[in-house]
């Protein structure tokens, strides 16, 4: 039997940590900008291109996930927990894809320009429709809170495995390479 990988590939780990930073920044900017006056414009100007960057990267990440399956779960994990971990992983892929798309769609329906930088802007992907905007705007907020809660569950689970179970689960994803067994 070939020696099984104990870690995600270096590229997978790079994507994970880069996107973790982007998503957390994004969630914080999202809740901050809706209560901001003076900083509203600056925050929105970051929020839109950053969201589109996440949309592009999640597609890369999903393809990478199919090409490079994760290393095995530690033996300490019962089947149900493995199922929950995989389900939350795919839920987060789904949210990273759907949230920017809903954002792009709602801005399209309201005819807010989606400026990336300078004069570079995205086309509108939905017809102008205030009602549609209203529904998508609510969905955007709701999905963002679902994402935050999913992230909290993910964060709590890895802390539990690292500090209580101590099964070295975090080693699968640490940015540095660990020695093979």
């Amino acid at each position, binding site marked *: 039997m070939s020696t099984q990988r104990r870690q995600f590939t270096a590229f997978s780990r790079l994507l994970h940590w880069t996107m973790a930073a982007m998503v957390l920044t994004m*969630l*914080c900017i999202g*809740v*901050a*900008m*809706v*209560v*901001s*006056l*003076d*900083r*509203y*414009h*600056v925050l*929105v100007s970051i929020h839109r291109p950053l969201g589109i960057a996440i949309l592009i990267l999640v597609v890369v990440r999903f393809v990478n996930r199919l090409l490079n399956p994760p290393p095995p779960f530690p033996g300490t994990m019962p089947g149900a927990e493995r199922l929950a971990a995989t389900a939350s992983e795919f839920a987060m892929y789904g949210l990273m894809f759907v949230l920017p798309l809903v954002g792009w769609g709602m801005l399209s329906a*309201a*005819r*807010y*320009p989606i400026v990336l930088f*300078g*004069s570079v*802007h995205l*086309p509108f992907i939905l017809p*102008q429709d*205030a*009602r549609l*905007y*209203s*529904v998508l*705007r*609510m969905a955007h907020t709701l999905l963002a809170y679902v994402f*935050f809660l999913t992230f*909290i569950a993910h*964060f*709590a689970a890895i*802390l*539990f495995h690292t*500090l*209580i179970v101590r099964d070295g689960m975090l080693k699968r994803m640490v940015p540095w390479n660990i020695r093979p067994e």
Partner: protein
Amino acid sequence: MSSIPGAAAGAARQRLGKTSAAASFALIGVALAAVIGTFAYVGGWFTPNALTPARITDGFEHVDGVHPGFRRNHAKGVGVSGFFESNGNGVRLSKAVVFRPGRVPVIGRFSLGGGRPYVADTPDAVRGLGLQFSLPDGELWRTAMINLPVFPVRTPEAFYQLLIASKPDPSTSKPDPATMKAFLARHPETVKALTVIKGQPVSSGFGNSTFHGLNAFRFSSPAGDSIPVRWLVTPMQPFEAASAGSAPRAKNSLFDALIAAIHRQPLQWRLVVIIGQPGDPTNDASIGWPAERQQVDVGTLTLDRVESDETSAAADINFDPLVLPAGITPSDDPLPSARSAVYSQSFTRRAGETKQPSAITPADVRRGG
């Protein structure tokens, strides 16, 4: 009691294990609380009294009532459309495509300030003009202007306080003088601005009003300079003073006259850019720049079509003053960002509501005012 060393050690280990597990759980709790706390903090949960876009929008609803489907400010209005013909004079000032010689389509909306959609027209009500320029490369430029030469306040906080102070007392239908006096005592800049505003003669209608962008922006020039600017549109229709006195007017007299005028012939304005000099404040919309500042006529706005909010494309446009093309950027003025935030809040609220018919109906527009 018999003591078995091995068992004691085991119990100690277990106790130690329990303590260590408790510490680990505590650590997990702290880590989760820190993350959730940060999220809640940036989301404003710990500062419930801070001024937010929602609170300012609530302020409009508090003063003018909730009128579902209508803008929370500038509720009463009509849509217009036409084009902007650039003369090329702005090319050296800004890289924005809108200033290249040629014509771009424009959608706009004339309105009265305030959140009451059926308010009777009066000459001294604030008149608004929102414009959207659709640039050939797909960029949009939106600006929302009013007929006041300066804005009464400098900051979003002062705006909110003035808004609340201006709520009419139900018994007198005028703002409470004591509240207003207290506000003015705290805001000398507003007293100065009101003097300037009252010193400017009011024109007879929308068509011969000058509309001011008020806030300072920056132009990025092809030479690489960042130029502080303000803009306004000056009417090509001759000035005529609003008639004084309290002669009874039709409820929609200003809009009726506007509709009749556009049915007769297109209305035109010159788009004028005022070039700021170093030292001119860009963060204070309550004071104008010196009168001798260079003014550049960059083109002509022609509005040749008028429509009710019921049919006009302008009805669903949020005239967000920070929808800017490349070549125009915000300055350090705190108001545009706040306006952008509050307009967005107002737009989101009305987008989900069912609107009542507007004061100016499609039939009013067909009749020609």
